[in-house]
């Protein structure tokens, strides 16, 4: 009898260690729903998904970096830069306070593509600084993040705009951020598309496997014939593109943009990835995990606001969750060995 409870206890512990993330999220939802049953509605789900969408895209970019055992602090500022660049190009010609005076309505593909190319270039710059100049990734991206923010502020401050928040977008652009099809927001579909794309890339292509190998043991990967430079350039470029895409959608979703958009997103993204099971030392990370990681943070902010808990407390809860998630994760591997 004693033995059987012992075994059961062990089983429960192992179950919790392996699925802690899901347990925590469900418990959180249960508590919130208990206090305010209206929380369990399609409208709320839609809102949470919509708010999570751009965050998911940023976190996916961050995940590439973490799997390859890198670090990237430039994500947030890149989101801001892309938001401002795309916003400045997406304004309607009829808007009274335009960024570019006397411009025609540009096809909305133009702001999207220009921003994404800017993201790609900055991502490649990050990759080159890390992979060729051997600057530690933490420092390199800290540098580029300041650099980008500076550039963005200069651009945003160009006359006649002089750091006025952007607005007056063409309908097609705001529709991209706020519209939906069959009740599902476009941006959620785009985020979903990104997730599927990243999932296939990481799990079903040789390139994806090489990223895991480089992050898991760079030297072993090098001796196995993998081109480390190529992989690092790829992950930072890919991250840059995803950040930029998130920035464009953020501008479209909010119908505005300032140079302070995206501030702090990089740390949220890292937190989501870590909570979602990515290892800070590289080689580990899944799309599903990161998805749940992002969702947890958004359920916390939305849910706690929903039941009237102050945002100060939300940060307290988030902080605890980050530390607890990693503490659990570390134990997961310890029990196996």
């Amino acid at each position, binding site marked *: 009898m004693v033995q059987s409870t012992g075994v059961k206890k062990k089983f429960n512990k192992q179950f919790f260690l392996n699925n802690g993330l899901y347990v925590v999220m469900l418990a959180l939802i249960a508590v919130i729903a208990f206090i305010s049953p209206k929380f369990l509605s399609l409208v709320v789900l839609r809102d949470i998904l919509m708010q999570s969408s751009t965050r998911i895209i940023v976190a996916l970019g961050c995940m590439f970096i973490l799997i390859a055992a890198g670090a990237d602090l430039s994500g947030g500022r890149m989101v801001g830069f892309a938001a401002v660049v795309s916003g400045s190009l997406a304004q309607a010609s009829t808007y009274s306070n335009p960024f570019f005076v006397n411009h025609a309505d540009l096809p909305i593909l133009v702001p999207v593509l220009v921003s994404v190319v800017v993201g790609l270039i900055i991502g490649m710059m990050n990759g080159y600084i890390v992979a060729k100049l051997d600057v530690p990734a933490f420092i390199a991206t800290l540098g580029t993040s300041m650099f980008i923010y500076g550039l963005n502020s200069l651009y945003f401050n160009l006359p006649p705009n002089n750091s006025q928040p952007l607005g007056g977008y063409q309908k097609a652009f705001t529709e991209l951020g706020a519209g939906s099809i069959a009740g599902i927001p476009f941006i959620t579909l785009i985020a979903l598309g990104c997730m599927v794309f990243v999932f296939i890339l990481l799990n079903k292509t040789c390139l994806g*496997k*090489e990223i895991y190998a480089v992050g898991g043991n760079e030297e*072993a990967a090098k001796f196995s014939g993998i081109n480390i430079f190529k992989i690092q350039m790829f992950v930072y470029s890919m991250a840059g593109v995803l950040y930029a895409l998130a920035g464009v959608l953020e501008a479209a979703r909010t119908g505005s943009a300032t140079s302070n958009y995206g501030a702090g997103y990089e740390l949220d993204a890292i937190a989501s990835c870590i909570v979602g099971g990515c290892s800070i030392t590289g080689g580990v990370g899944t799309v599903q995990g990161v998805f749940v990681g992002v969702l947890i943070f958004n359920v916390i902010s939305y849910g706690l606001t929903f039941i009237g808990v102050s945002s100060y407390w939300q940060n307290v809860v988030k902080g605890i969750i980050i530390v607890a998630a990693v503490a659990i994760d570390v134990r997961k591997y310890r029990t196996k*060995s």
Partner: protein
Amino acid sequence: MGKSDVVLEMRNIDKEFPGVKALNHVSLQVRKGTVHALMGENGAGKSTLMKCAFGIYHPSAGEIFIDGEKTEFKNTRDAMDQGISMIHQELHPINTRSVMENIWVGRVPHRKIGPIHVVDERKMYKETVELFKGLNLDIDPRKKVGELSVSICQLLEIARAVSYGAKVIIMDEPTSSLTETETEILFAIIKKLKVQGVAIIYISHKMEEILKISDEVTIMRDGSLVGSWIANELTQDLIVTRMVGREMTQRFPQRHNVPGDIMLEVENLTSVNPHSFKGVSFHVKKGEILGVGGLVGAQRTELMEAIFGIRKIDSGSIKINGKQVQIKSASDAIENKIALLTEERRSTGIVPMLSVLENTVLAKQTAHTHKYQTSLRLLVDRKRADDTLQFVDSLSIKTPNIKTQIQYLSGGNQQKVLLGRWLLTEPEILILDEPTRGIDVGAKYEIYTIMEQLASQGKSIIMISSEMTELMGMSDRIIVMCEGYISGMMDGKTATDEKIMHCASSHRN
């Protein structure tokens, strides 16, 4: 030898882990002033037993006595306070700090000025010098540990154990990274310690060493005690038989390979690094096993890594099948059908958190991606699994399944996975750098057999080895390196320890 000589006694020790009985009624008696060798294959329970003796693990059952008095260890600090020290296989010195700080870390000599403890640098220096003097060590206590070689660090660890006033020092594979000369220095220190009455528990796979320095030998198998013997009643064959539990008549397989035409020819290869290899020329034939001997620091690994495209070459040429080739990266080398099984399995071999499967297909997947891809450039998991299973089977790799993370496999099995990784690239030239380092006797024999089979199939094998018996037992021909030069070449059949050592220690003759 009376009972009173016994300084450490472990009686009927059991240790259970969830689902495994790692130790089963193991007893051990270690006498004052003796070297007690502990032997057994990997997984026999030697390390577990020693971790119990050093307070890292708590035995599930059994008793421990020190100087005849029953005791137990709460933790390693407690064990050290009671006179037990352990020198681990892998060292973790604080590289950025000085030698003396490393020795006294955690109990730095200090003076108290008011409530503040101030480090007494002079006392620390003096005590370190005295400590080293007692051990005939010539190391500057103020030097940074990071500037010292691995072998010196090993000796420092021993000095540290002595400084704790250890009665028993456990040494886990202390010579695995030492050259022959350094090993001699270690043995001299061990002899000194014996005279001082210190007991040494010595874990090693190297049989010659064991027979040379130990007084008693305890052999373990599968978590149980096989027995303890006086060392000079034992022979290598007896030890092996008792370790593996079956007759092992040969340590090396019969070789049937016949060397043919020249496969790889290296001419006048010189490194860009002036301290590395210079003007190296050698060749290896099809179906030949070429041994490469030398001391640590002879630049053997560097030479092979240069041939493999990882290190830069200043001048010289590499010909394969008579055709000159340019190899600038590992992928160039793989394309030219060269494989390199590296010496440092952990740092340059395995990707620890990835599965056996991912580790096996790593090189082939990169070099011959199309073989695993559909027309949409997506990977076909079945093909990758088939390739992996083929080698799990043919190399008899022991793993729960191919999705198991490679870090949970034993060293020998990890090595076989890595060998599989390279065989998948269908190499013609295999460079094996210390292929059996840290691997138990049974797995060693398996690796030798695979080498023989590959050579018989006409592949060229270059084997770097620091083990003399292995070098002589497996090579058709041996080249010896010293300080970056090739200092000798000899036939494998007529090579002797003395000849190899002579070449390894000097290239100016």
